[in-house]
């Protein structure tokens, strides 16, 4: 692909939320790991749906319903294209969390005390608690991959760990939401596949920044959230290799997912339909469709290059401040800086930064086990996205210095 221009001014301009002032300062939004801002085209798509296309999908004979259904199913095709998989392998959920729960529930009748589930200590709570529940329900053993002191995985050690423990399921994040570290997935998946383990990848943080080719990645399941990839809230994606997907037990039941319903029993449709009951988040799906279109116009290689440059710049500036400790792996990162200043509480610095219009997050970032492992109560997290500018970094760093001065 020819090197395309990445016009950051134009891009930033596409995101209306970024144009506002917070506490009389221009907003510097560094909380994209929590949720990304939305381009105007996504907002417009939602608006258009409710203004002129609103109807329930499937089974409607009238034009509005037909049209909404077509757009809704086209969004599934686009999602499948984005990840290089088949449309029938895409299930809409309400978020990454629900997608993981769906898989956990779907394995319940198959797992027992002879099964082992491997997670890592890097995981978001969404990829920990559902497996604790499955373990309690079935007796399956739940163990965690060893994590280095810097929050990274020793891949050789982890691969051995997998081969030794022969899990039925390996479930691991593509990138840490707390530190931004990117997991080197290929060798881990290879190790798991050698012993025929199922593999689930939590792509909540990776799906937009890294645009994985899931066919190539060779995982069985992959989950992500629309709201973390420029799309609307209330929507997630579950990819499942068709055979693995269709083999899962049904999760929620009701309308749409059924074939025949009698008073005493029912029959279900094949995947993905059998996992999609009730009226879906239609506006969410159509907005997500627009988000994928938008990402497509930018090209993922350009996004990655720009984000890497920006991250390198931010790291350089941040390390130059005396007393700062950065916990993120700086060489392989989706653009998230997790740090502390001396032994100051992140709450104070986050509150003060907000005074300067800077949105960062403070706390355990839904990764308590990781924080415990690192011996921390929490960190300040500044997470970048391709709509952030070098000027954002400058304002952030200068404001941080002023906040530090305020603490004395």
């Amino acid at each position, binding site marked *: 692909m020819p090197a395309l221009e990445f016009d950051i001014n134009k891009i930033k301009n596409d995101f209306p939320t970024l144009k506002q002032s917070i506490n009389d300062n221009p907003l510097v939004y560094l909380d994209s790991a929590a949720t990304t801002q939305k381009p105007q085209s996504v907002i417009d798509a939602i608006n258009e749906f409710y203004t002129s296309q609103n109807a329930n*999908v*499937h089974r409607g*004979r009238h034009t509005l319903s037909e049209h909404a259904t*077509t757009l809704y199913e086209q969004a599934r095709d686009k999602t499948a294209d984005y990840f290089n998989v088949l449309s029938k392998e895409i299930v809409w959920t309400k978020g990454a969390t629900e997608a993981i729960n769906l898989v956990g529930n779907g394995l319940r009748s198959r797992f027992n005390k002879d099964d082992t589930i491997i997670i890592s200590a890097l995981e978001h709570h969404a990829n920990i608690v559902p497996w604790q529940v499955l373990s309690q329900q079935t007796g399956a053993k739940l163990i965690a991959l060893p994590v280095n002191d810097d929050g990274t995985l020793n891949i050789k050690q982890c691969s051995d760990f997998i081969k030794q423990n022969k899990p039925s399921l390996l479930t691991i994040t593509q990138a840490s939401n707390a530190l931004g570290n990117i997991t080197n997935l290929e060798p881990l998946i290879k190790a798991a596949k050698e012993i025929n383990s199922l593999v689930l990848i939590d792509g909540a943080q990776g799906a937009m920044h890294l645009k994985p080719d899931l066919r190539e990645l060779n995982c069985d399941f992959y989950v992500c959230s629309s709201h973390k990839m420029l799309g609307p809230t209330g929507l997630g994606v579950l990819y499942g290799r068709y055979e693995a997907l269709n083999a899962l037990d049904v999760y929620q039941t009701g309308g749409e997912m059924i074939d025949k319903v009698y008073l005493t029993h029912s029959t279900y*449709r094949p995947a993905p339909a059998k996992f999609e009951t009730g009226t879906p988040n239609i506006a969410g799906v159509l907005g997500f469709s627009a988000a994928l279109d938008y990402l497509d116009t930018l090209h993922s290689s350009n996004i990655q290059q720009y984000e890497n440059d920006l991250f390198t710049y931010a790291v350089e500036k941040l390390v130059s401040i005396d007393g700062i400790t950065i916990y993120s792996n700086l060489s392989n990162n989706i653009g998230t800086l997790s740090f502390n200043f001396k032994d100051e509480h992140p709450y104070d610095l986050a509150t003060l930064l907000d005074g300067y219009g800077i949105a960062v997050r403070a706390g355990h970032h839904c990764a308590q086990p990781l924080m415990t492992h690192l011996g921390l109560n929490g960190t300040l997290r500044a997470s970048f996205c391709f709509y952030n500018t070098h000027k954002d970094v400058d304002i952030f760093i200068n404001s941080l210095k002023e906040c530090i001065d305020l603490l004395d």
Partner: protein
Amino acid sequence: MTNTFKKVTESIDKASAWQQKYREIMLLGKTLPVLPDVLKTDDALVPGCESKVWMFVEFDLKENTLVVIGDSDTRIVKGLLAIILALYNGLTPEQVVNIDAYEEFDKLGLISHLSASRGNGIKAMVDKIQTMAQHKIS
């Protein structure tokens, strides 16, 4: 295009108002023989349709042609089925793969009835016919 198809769809083609178009489609449906009840098995039912659509796509080895049979409990779908039958019935696999039902339905102003979201079974029928023909060729 077969002569049957041209003859069958002539009146639809000519219809100016949409009402007239539907009237012709329904008339067409009436010309289609009713499937004997014994053939209306659950296996022959196209899944996921609001209306009931039964379909059989067979291959006549002797003649090297496709045999397509179908019925529906609705007038409009049955009329659309009649169009599909006129389009493909009695053709060789090679002929079948060269006929694009989407194009023909588009010309007739009926393309919306072939959209994926219409759960009327017509699209499923076309897909099955094309798959069968492809299969026979290779």
